[in-house]
């Protein structure tokens, strides 16, 4: 199905609209003088990159990784530590951060993909906690309090201190991540991962080395997670172990499930819904009674329970089931 034809379906139309709004968000927030919205928008885009990367293994691969926020931390700390030691150039910081995230993902994947079920959930969580505690133990880099850093420098190319430029950079990287994910999902490699989700014994019997495929997917997913971490550190000019607390990993899973697992744009819908819910539940509760907004999670928690119980397909399934299932993207 071509791009133009896909605009005729509700899913295509809504997605296209969403992308257009995201693309011009800095202009909108400037026109309406809502700077705060741009910073939320930036965080949405960065979290969406992480969610898309988690979706590659969680959604397409069916591997419940409960430690994905660790890549926020690794990407962020690589940038922060280099910047702290005077290496300000993004041309050095970013590749180092992505390589670090990739290597860590490869190591964790190699160990944890040997297990399955609850063991896999817990071992990914445990490895994330390990890095979390290391971050909290690094006295030189602020330990639990974290560290203020200066943003990565790309002299002559882009100034990350400019909010709008930084947003557009994040948005472009999100588009790149989505493009990569669509290539991944429809490639032979992606089909093996998806096949192994429904029946890994059959895939093994068909002669695919499922473990190696999954390890490759896990590693890729970690690399993109590291990218999100780089951006997150630059967004706040700040790193701390809290970036990679296990609650953030839980939030990422929530986002992917909320948006629609194993769908291309689901993680993006999920991220937007998650942040919009967070930002809107507070004022809505405040309307009922002043001060209740602070307790928004008392509503959000049970909502998660209901989503888990009754909304398997996520937001994406509201647009009907995708008709075409392309062999090649």
């Amino acid at each position, binding site marked *: 199905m071509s791009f133009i034809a896909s605009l005729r379906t509700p899913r295509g139309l809504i997605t296209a609209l969403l992308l257009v709004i995201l693309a011009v968000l800095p202009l909108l927030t400037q026109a309406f003088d809502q700077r705060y919205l741009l910073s939320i928008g930036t965080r949405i885009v960065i979290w969406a990159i992480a969610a898309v990367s988690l979706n590659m293994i969680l959604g397409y691969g069916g591997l419940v990784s409960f430690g994905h926020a660790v890549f926020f931390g690794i990407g962020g700390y690589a940038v922060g530590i280099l910047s702290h030691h005077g290496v300000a150039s993004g041309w050095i910081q970013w590749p180092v951060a992505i390589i670090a995230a990739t290597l860590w993902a490869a190591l964790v994947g190699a160990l944890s993909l040997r297990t399955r079920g609850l063991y896999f959930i817990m071992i990914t969580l445990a490895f994330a906690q390990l890095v979390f505690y290391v971050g909290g133990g690094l006295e030189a880099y602020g*330990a639990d309090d974290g560290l203020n850093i200066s943003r990565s420098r790309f002299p002559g190319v882009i100034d990350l201190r400019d909010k709008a430029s930084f947003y557009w950079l994040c948005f472009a990287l999100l588009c790149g991540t989505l493009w990569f994910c669509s290539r991944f999902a429809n490639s032979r490699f992606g089909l093996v991962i998806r096949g192994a989700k429904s029946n890994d014994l059959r895939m093994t019997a068909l002669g695919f080395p499922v473990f190696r495929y999954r390890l490759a997917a896990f590693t890729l997913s970690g690399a993109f997670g590291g990218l999100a971490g780089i951006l997150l550190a630059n967004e706040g000019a700040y790193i701390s172990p809290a970036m990679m607390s296990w609650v953030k990993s*839980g939030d990422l899973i929530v986002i992917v499930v909320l948006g629609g697992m194993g769908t291309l744009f689901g993680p993006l819908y999920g991220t937007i819904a998650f942040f919009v819910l967070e930002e809107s539940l507070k004022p809505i509760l405040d309307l009922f009674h002043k001060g209740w907004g602070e307790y928004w999670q008392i509503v959000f928690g049970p909502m998660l329970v209901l989503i888990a119980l009754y909304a398997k397909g996520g937001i994406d399934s509201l647009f009907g089931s995708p008709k075409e299932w392309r062999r090649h993207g």
Partner: protein
Amino acid sequence: MDYLLLQMLNGVQLGLLMFLLAAGLTLTFGIMDLVNLAHGSLYMMGAYIAWTLIGWTDSFVLGALLALPATFLLGIVVEAVVMRRLYVRDHLEQVLATFGLILFFNELVRVIWGPAGKSIAVPAFLNRTVEILPGVPYPAYRFAIIVVGAVVAVLLAWLVARTRIGMLIRAGASNRRMIGALGINIELLFSLVFGLGAVFAGLAGLMAAPLTSVKIGMGDDILILAFVIIVIGGIGSIKGAFVAAMVVGQIDIVGRAFLPDLLKTFLSASAASSAAPAISQVLIYVVMAGVLVWRPTGLFGQRT
């Protein structure tokens, strides 16, 4: 030497607390096939409920004894309202729903008890030391935790190995559908087991309260340790949970107690004191990774 002994006792005490938490978790997973992240919330609720009841009754023992049936009831309610619907779902949905429960309980505590932490005083009759060996004093309260923890562990072992309900629990762990088909009321069994797990979690929470403090999210970090313990021990195995809890307790305490001095030989004092707890935590996860690489289903887990 005395110092080493005291620290090892602290490790045993911490291990027993974590065993109480892990026992409920491993039972619910082994029998109901349920990943319950909200188990730490029951630990927290146990502590908060005990704080209120101790305030009302003006007695630690009375308040604590009343808090146990209260957490049992809370467990039964949570099981009936949410968990029952989750047994047949996959792990991801269980993780998601119980993650939502954590958020709910943390906020609920903030609404009811306020954001500030509470403290429970060590009861007067335990606020002294006992001589565990001639000339080696040990805080009586910590010693009491060891005694209570050990008694509960023995009771649990007896319950599982020697009673009819324990027989059903073991049967349920090995084949759930079969005992249902044999005419056992598994819904009642599941409720009971969940309530029992809640009581253990609440007991651990209220016993830990005088040593730390009663605060929001107190159950979250220790919950992850409890999960590490059941994964090391093998999911569904009480014996495994006990062994792993002891190992983790020792690593944690001994790491905290001895690493700072060791690190000070080559690090600054402040760097050593902030790195040591991190390293002892890291060690726990390294042990877990090692065990899983060696035995992917834990030390005492069922082979598949």
